[in-house]
């Protein structure tokens, strides 16, 4: 009675031909391709099993025995919450740092689950955190296990950063810090840092640097936007369990309207409240986290992401929209241009708003579904819930597309 066109079960156990076909159809960065191929090849492996603190500590011990010359001790291991896509364990390391001598460091292991809601590279995070150390507040990175040699999956170890993601008294920002209300005092202190750091990230020169994980897209062409579009389309093909006509229209529009890249920036990928820490007493930012979606590309990708309505909130009188709860939207772009020395192009911004909505739907409707269905992560129950974000994002996407179809 029914054909197989609407059946996506083959994604549970994809054939090599299927994997290669998708890889070929949606070219992008080399590392992204490797990561997604690895994801698909491992997909039929058993569901994720949560390691105990003791098991993870054993992995850590073995790694440190190879990385550290001399005695060391690992203490105070504990789980951290807050990582939707990564597993995080805190610990204290007593050791002799060759740079500083005898040291006691509070550190964090950040490790992939069997399959993440966001297939990204710990090596890229490591590289970006290293790049910005001493330039903007980021945790110092210590060690990397890029292929899961010591840990069950790829992992990196970095310094624990003090601070909070939102004021202790607020009831807002429950979901990953989205829509956090900081209040007037903190806004005044945090907003200038928020803009300055974004300007610093985007204006960092990339052409004179060699990266092991990130490819340089061509300036003056559409390759940068195409890579990002293809990442979304590929994930949609690999992970979804249902079709959605709106996504097809969006995909067509995005391909027809690829913008050219005028300046290659480092793009953070998830620049928003919830992803920076600050000291509540002083309003000083202490760390920018979650660089896993970082890449070299178009700054408008970050700008469109940061200014999404789900990231910030309106003032009580409904008149002023605060970008990430910090900067009035009508001031944001001008202040960003002043801080970065880079222009904001409304057309590119519009394009990346569409692309961001498309990519969020790929994650919320496709990846979250597949990962939870196969029991692949430490947060399956949360990923199941994430489907609830899809209707609001769909509404944004449909409205945006209607403007410029």
């Amino acid at each position, binding site marked *: 009675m029914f054909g197989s066109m609407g059946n996506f079960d083959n994604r549970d156990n994809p054939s090599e031909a299927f994997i290669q076909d998708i890889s070929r159809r949606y070219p992008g960065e080399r590392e992204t391709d490797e990561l997604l191929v690895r994801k698909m090849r491992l997909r039929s492996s058993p569901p994720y099993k949560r390691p105990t603190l003791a098991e993870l500590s054993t992995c850590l011990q073995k790694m440190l025995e190879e990385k550290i010359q001399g005695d060391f001790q690992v203490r105070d291991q504990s789980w951290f919450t807050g990582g939707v896509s990564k597993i995080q364990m805190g610990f204290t390391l007593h050791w002799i740092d060759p740079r500083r001598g005898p040291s006691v460091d509070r550190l964090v292991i950040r490790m992939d689950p069997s399959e993440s809601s966001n297939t990204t590279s710990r090596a890229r995070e490591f590289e970006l955190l290293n790049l910005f150390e001493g330039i903007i507040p980021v945790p110092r990175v210590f060690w990397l296990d890029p292929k899961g040699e010591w840990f069950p999956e790829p992992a990196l170890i970095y310094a624990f950063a003090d601070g909070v993601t939102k004021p202790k008294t607020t009831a807002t920002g429950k979901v990953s810090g989205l829509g956090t209300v900081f209040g007037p005092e903190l806004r005044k202190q945090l907003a200038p840092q928020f803009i300055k750091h974004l300007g610093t990230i985007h204006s960092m020169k990339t052409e004179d640097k060699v990266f092991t994980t990130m490819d340089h897209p061509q300036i003056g062409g559409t390759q940068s936007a195409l890579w990002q579009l293809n990442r979304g389309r590929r994930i949609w093909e690999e992970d979804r369990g249902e079709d959605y006509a709106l996504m097809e229209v969006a995909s067509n529009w995005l391909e027809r309207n690829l913008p050219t890249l005028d300046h290659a920036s480092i793009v953070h990928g998830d620049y928003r409240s919830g992803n920076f820490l600050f000291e509540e007493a002083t309003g000083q930012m202490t760390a920018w986290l979650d660089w896993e979606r970082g890449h070299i590309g178009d700054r408008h990708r970050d700008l469109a992401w940061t200014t999404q309505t789900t990231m910030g909130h309106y003032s009580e009188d409904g008149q002023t929209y605060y970008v990430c709860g910090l900067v009035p939207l009508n001031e944001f772009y001008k202040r960003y241009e002043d801080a970065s020395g880079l222009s904001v192009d409304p057309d590119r911004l519009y394009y990346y708003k569409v692309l961001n909505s498309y990519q969020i739907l790929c994650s919320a409707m496709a990846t979250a579904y597949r990962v939870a269905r196969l029991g692949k992560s430490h947060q399956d129950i949360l990923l199941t819930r994430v*489907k609830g974000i899809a209707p*609001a994002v769909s509404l944004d996407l449909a409205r945006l597309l209607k403007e410029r*179809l």
Partner: protein
Amino acid sequence: MDVTENGLRAAVKSLTDVVAPAINPNDPLAAEQLKLVVDYLEFVRGRLDFLCYRETFELRDNLALARAIQNSGAIISPENKSLLESSIETGTAVLSSHELKSNVIRLAAFEIAAVVREVIRESASYEESIRRKLETLVLEMSVDRITFDRAWYLPLGFDPSPKEVPHFVEVAEKNR
């Protein structure tokens, strides 16, 4: 009598009264996930009586879009045209059946959505006015589906304007 709803109530009570106090305070992920599990069970309990209703809405919605595309005047390739016709035929037959089964309704809806997908992909090569007409159709007809889903998932707390969302039954009944 089916007792699933009662079972869900009991599961929530057990998790809240017995399991939650026994959770290791040094395992914040366990406490966080327990709350998510309880919330999700409550969500399912609230939707239990409407699961088949939802499947039917989706099938009806997909059928409406497929028929609109069929009547749009677009020159669809013979292969996709034939697939579209047969999926509409099957969906219509399922919908008018006296024995509505959730899995059959879902499969019929998925089949139509898959054929629509192929037509939209194909439309990238259509003449511009026809392509725009098809894409506009999809956007216009997505409104009901989006509104229904906003209402369906409202208890999960992600909607930025919850006050403007009608009850999902209201959405589904509007276009019957």
